[in-house]
């Protein structure tokens, strides 16, 4: 080990000459410039990124406005069919106030099933005896 220390210390020679060669200061300066250039471009990209994302994920243009009342109007035939069905089901004087389509949130089938289930075991009132 001592030998290697002596050998190495004899081989260590301070010289500024390598700095002036192609692989000296020019390479170091170029290296720093490339690092800065790459990261400046990254900065520029990150700066515009939110705007790019906003463009990409912008909502589709709104559809032309239509008269909501006109959309709600059902064909007369449909209205007649619904009225007939309600009359056949209710079997007493009634008035249809509103017709609307069921959405998935309404759980229409479940609601209908639950109604039928409750009606199937209706307990008669005592005063009707």
């Amino acid at each position: 080990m001592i030998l290697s220390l002596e050998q190495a210390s004899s081989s260590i020679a301070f010289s500024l000459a390598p700095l002036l060669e192609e692989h000296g200061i020019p390479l170091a300066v170029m290296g720093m410039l490339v690092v800065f250039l790459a990261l400046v471009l990254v900065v520029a990209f990150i700066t515009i990124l939110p705007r790019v994302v906003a463009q990409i994920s912008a909502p589709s243009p709104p559809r032309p406005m239509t008269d909501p009342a006109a959309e709600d109007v059902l064909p007369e035939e449909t209205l007649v069919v619904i009225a007939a069905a309600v009359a056949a089901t209710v079997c007493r004087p009634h008035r249809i106030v509103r017709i609307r389509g069921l959405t998935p949130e309404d759980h229409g089938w479940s609601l209908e099933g639950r109604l039928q289930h409750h009606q199937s075991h209706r307990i008669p009132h005592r005063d009707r005896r």
Partner: protein
Amino acid sequence: MTAYDYIATKAAQLWATTAFSGMEPGNMIMIMIGAGFIYLAIAKEYEPLLLVPIGFGVIVGNIPAVAGMTLSVYEEGTVLKYLYFGVEKGIYPPLIFLGIGAMTDFSTMLSNPKLVLLGAAAQIGVFLTYLGALTIGFTPQEAGAIGIIGGADGPTAIFLSSKLAPALLGAIAIAAYSYMALVPVIQPPIMRLLTTQAERRIRMKPSREVSREERIIFPVVAFLICTTLAPGAVVLIGMLFFGNLLKECTVTDRLALTARSAMIDIVTILLGFCVGASTNAQHFLQARSILIFCLGAVSFAVATAGGLLFAKFMNLFLNEKINPLIGAAGVSAVPDSARVVQVVGQQEDPTNFLLMHAMAPNVAGVIGSAIAAGILWSQLAN
């Protein structure tokens, strides 16, 4: 032959077949250094995930082999040689970068892009040390491998030295990881020396929220920008951003989880152990190794100072001042240097939280050091 002679002969044979016969003072010194690493890792918790495998590897690598037996990483056909293949050929570092990418959250960097420049400024340590090493007689290839220690990124240092100066790999790897472990010791004095109390108390605005789309697009485009300018960095930067894409796209959670847990752990164990095992006293204990350690310390200090001073320089032009302490995190060493910034900042103002701000130059430093390594490799490989 008398019984005494027979026993003496057998004892001599036994002695010759033990490690004691080949043990030199250098091996004993290295074994003590390895034990010291393990002590620092366990008792002081300095980078235990690295120093325990390295420390034990140092001990393993310094047990002398018996004549005729091939054991070390430098001998053909040994188990250690096969494991060391990943270090020698630069296979492990990119895999570690994949795991780092899958762990890294670039959000703070994306929310405050100007802080990326601090990660570039800190690379001054790499190039000034490169010049310093040239002046004391190292070849350009060796000087490049030594300079990258200032990048404070162990895998990058190993990758570059395996390409440019394989003979110095052990010393460079040990120096890089030692200084990364000593970040809490090296950086604070430099940070206090170069900043005023008022500067250390500067508060910064909280980061904005970054959308998922930004976090997905960033790794792809940033990879293209960095590698078109420095193609030498394609392996390291590619794996880093690939890992990050796995994390951010959220449809490859299983892959991201494996990359940032089991895979990086396995590779870290192999890398640390093999680097440690390569520090055989006969190869490692040389004056050049001591020089490399000295240059590594200079590189680290200059990189820290470079980041700090550039932050102060940026403050000359900024309306919303940045705390110059976060410039010190530009040296990479994720996340230790960011933690040091937080600690030093809180010593001045306990209600000032700089950690998340410091993570921006910290991860930018990883990209910067990988680009610096790519440039040095592409320029010096031939």
